[in-house]
C-alpha cells in the first residue's frame, strides 16, 4: 500500500498573506515537510499543517505553521501523501461521487421532506401547543384582547340579562363537552369594523360580537357557534397555527435559504397557501365538534350554518365559496361536511 503514496506533490506556494504564488513541490524529509521552489528549499516545517477539507475537486490549501500556504489541485495525491484517504470523513464524502448512492439518498430525502411537511410539522405543532403552559396562553389572550379593545371593539350594548342568558347557554355547552367551566370565559363586544363575528383565543377567551347575536334567529344557531369556538380552544387550533407559522419560517429558511430570490418567493407563497389550508382543516374539525355537541344537546346541528349563510350574505358573493385562497371553507362545503355525519338527517 505504502508504495503508491507519492513522494511529493506539486502545487503553488504563497508566502504568508501575499497574493504572489510560485510553482512549488511539497515533500517529506524524515518527519519534516519541505517546500521547494525551483529546486531550492524555501521552508521546512516540523509541526502539523492545517489542511482544508475536500469539497468536489476544488484546490486544497495546506496552511503551514508560519502562515505560508501550499495550494494544490491534486486532491487524490494530497490525500495519499498525508494518509487522509483512510479517514472516515474522506470515505464518507467519497460517497457523494457514487451516482447510485446519491440516487438512493435523493429518494430518501424526498420521502423525508414529504413526511416532515405532511406529518412532522403538524405533530410538532400539536406537541408544542400541548406543552405550552396555561400562563402563556392566557397572556396571549390578555395581550390580544387589549389590542383589539383599543383598535377595533367597543363595549357591548347587549342587555345584561341577555348576556347572562347566553353565558348560561355557553356553560351548558361546556358541561356537555365534559370540560371545566372555569377554563373558559365568554366576552361580549361591539364588533365595529369586523361586524358579525365570533372567535376564540388560545387561553379560553371566546368573543362574540353584538352583531352576530342580533343576526341569530334561535338559540340553536347561537349554541352551534359557541360550540364551534369552544372546539378551537379545546383542540388548541390557534396555538398550533402560531407554531406552524414559526416552523414554516424556520424550515423554509434552512432548506431554501441559500438559493436565489425566486425560490424563496415561491417557498413563502407555498407557506402562506399551506397555512390557509391548515386553517380550513381546523374550521372543518371545529364544525364537526360543534355538530356532535348539538346532537347530544338535542339541538339542530345544522342551525349555525344557516346563521353563517346570513353572515356571508352581508359580506357579498365572494365569501360563499371555499377555494385555495380562503381561510374558512365556504358554507356550502361546511353544510355538506356536517350532513355527512351519521346522526344528521339532511
Amino acid at each position, binding site marked *: 500500500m505504502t508504495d503508491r503514496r507519492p513522494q511529493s506533490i506539486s502545487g503553488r506556494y504563497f508566502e504568508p498573506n501575499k497574493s504572489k504564488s510560485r510553482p512549488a513541490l511539497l515533500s517529506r524529509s524524515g518527519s519534516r515537510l519541505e517546500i521547494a521552489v525551483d529546486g531550492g528549499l524555501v521552508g521546512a516545517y516540523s509541526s502539523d499543517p492545517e489542511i482544508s477539507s475536500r469539497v468536489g475537486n476544488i484546490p486544497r490549501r495546506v496552511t503551514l505553521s508560519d502562515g505560508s500556504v501550499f495550494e494544490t489541485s491534486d486532491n487524490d495525491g494530497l490525500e495519499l501523501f498525508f494518509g487522509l484517504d483512510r479517514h472516515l470523513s474522506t470515505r464518507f464524502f467519497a460517497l457523494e461521487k457514487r451516482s447510485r448512492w446519491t440516487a438512493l439518498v435523493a429518494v430518501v430525502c424526498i420521502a423525508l421532506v414529504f413526511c416532515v411537511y405532511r406529518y412532522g410539522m403538524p405533530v410538532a405543532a400539536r406537541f408544542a401547543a400541548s406543552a405550552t403552559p396555561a400562563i402563556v396562553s392566557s397572556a396571549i389572550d390578555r395581550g390580544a384582547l387589549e389590542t383589539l379593545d383599543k383598535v377595533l371593539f367597543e363595549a357591548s350594548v347587549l342587555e345584561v340579562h341577555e348576556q347572562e342568558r347566553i353565558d348560561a347557554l355557553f356553560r351548558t355547552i361546556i358541561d356537555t363537552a365534559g370540560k371545566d367551566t372555569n377554563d373558559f370565559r365568554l366576552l361580549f363586544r361591539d364588533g365595529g369594523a369586523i361586524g358579525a363575528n365570533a372567535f376564540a383565543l388560545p387561553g379560553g377567551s371566546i368573543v362574540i360580537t353584538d352583531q352576530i347575536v342580533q343576526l341569530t334567529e334561535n338559540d340553536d344557531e347561537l349554541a352551534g357557534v359557541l360550540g364551534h369556538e369552544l372546539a378551537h380552544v379545546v383542540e388548541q387550533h390557534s396555538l398550533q397555527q402560531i407554531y406552524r407559522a414559526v416552523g414554516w419560517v424556520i424550515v423554509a429558511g434552512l432548506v431554501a435559504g441559500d438559493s*436565489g430570490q425566486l425560490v424563496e418567493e415561491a417557498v413563502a407563497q407555498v407557506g402562506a397557501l399551506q397555512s390557509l389550508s391548515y386553517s380550513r382543516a381546523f374550521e372543518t374539525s371545529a364544525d364537526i365538534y360543534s355538530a356532535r355537541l348539538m346532537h347530544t344537546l338535542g339541538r339542530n346541528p345544522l342551525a349555525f350554518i344557516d346563521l353563517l349563510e346570513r353572515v356571508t350574505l352581508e359580506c357579498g358573493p365572494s365569501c360563499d365559496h371555499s377555494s385555495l385562497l380562503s381561510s374558512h371553507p365556504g358554507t356550502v362545503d361546511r353544510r355538506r361536511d356536517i350532513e355527512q355525519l351519521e346522526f344528521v338527517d339532511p
Partner: protein
Amino acid sequence: MLERNEGAFGRGQTPARHIGRFEGNASEYFGIWIVNLLLSIVTLGIYTAWAKVRQRRYFYGNTILDGHSFDYHAKPIAILKGRVIVVVALVMFQVLSSIQPFLILVLLPAYIFLAPWVFNRALTFNARVTSYRNVRFHFQGRYRRALLVFIVMPFLTAFTFGLLYPVVSKMTQEYIGDSTYYGSEKFHCQPRLGPYYKNLGACVTVAIVVLAVTTGIVFTVTAMPFWDGLVDRLAENQGGSTGDQIDNAFSLGMFLMLLAVYPVFILSYIAYRAGVRNITFNATTIANQHRLQSGLKRRRYVWILVTNLFAMILTLGLLRPWASVRTWRYIVGHTAVLSKGPLDDFADKAGAEGSVTASQFLDIEGIDFGL
C-alpha cells in the same frame, strides 16, 4: 460578452481582460447537495451550518479568475451559533408579539437602530471569510453611513412612490463597494446616478408593456361567449346562484389580472437588480489599475431564474443543484477584471485586526442575509 464600458480607463495601454470561469458542474454538485440535505434533515437542521460551508466552498473554489480560485473560510460552528441566535430571536419575537402586540412599538425602534450595525457586521463577516489568491477581503463600514443607506433612504423612498429608489440603489452599492478592501487595498466605487435611473426606466417600461398585454388578453378572453358558460358551470359546481354572472365573469377576470401583477413585479425587480450590479461593477476600480466588469443581460438573467424555478417545481426540487450551478456559471462568466498590471502584488492587512472583541463579533456575524 463584455465589450462595453471600458471608458477612459482602458485607453492608451492594452489592459488584459480576465474573464471569470466556473469549473463546477451540476452532476458533481448534486452529490454534495443531496448529502448536505440528507444530513441537514436527519440532524434536524443542525448540519445546515456545515452544509452551508461545503456549498459555499464548492462554488467559490470552482470560481476561477486568472488561473486562481476563490475560497470560503467560515467556521461551521460560528455559523451554527449565529443561526441559533437568529432562530431563538425569531421564536421569541413571534411569541412575545402574540402575548403583547404593542411590544412592536418598543421593538421597532430597537430594530431600526440595531439594523445598520447588524448589516455592517454581516458584510464584514462575509468579506472576511472570502479569499482570492491567499488574500482575504475586508469590509470597513461606518454606522452613520449604514443608517443612512439602509434605513433612512429606503424610508424616504416609501414616501416618493419609489422615485428615489435608484438613488438608494446607488448609495447602497457605493457604500458597500467603497468600504470593501482586497487585502490592504481599497476598492473605489464611483458610479454616476444617471444609469441607475435609466435601468429603472427600462425595467418599469417592460413591466408596463407586459401588464398591458396581459390585461388585453384577459379582457378579450372574458368577452368571449364561452367564458360566461365557464363561469356559469363553476358557479353551479359550487352550488351557488348563477344570478351574478356578469359580475362573476368580471371579478374572475380582475382576479386573473391581479394574479399577474405580483410575478411581473418580482421579475422586473430581478431585472433591475441585474442592471444595478452591472452599473456598480463597471464603476469600481482597485489599486488604480484594475477595473471590475459585469455584463449581465437583464432578460437573459430573468429567463434563467424563471426556467430554473419551473425546472425545480417539475422535478420536486431535484434540479436545484443544476439551477444553482447554471445561475452561478452565468454570473461568473459575465464578470471580469480589466487589468493594467499584474493581479498578484496584493498583500493581506497586517494580522493585528483579529482582536478578541472582533472575533466575538464575528461569531454573531454568522447571521447572514440568507439565514
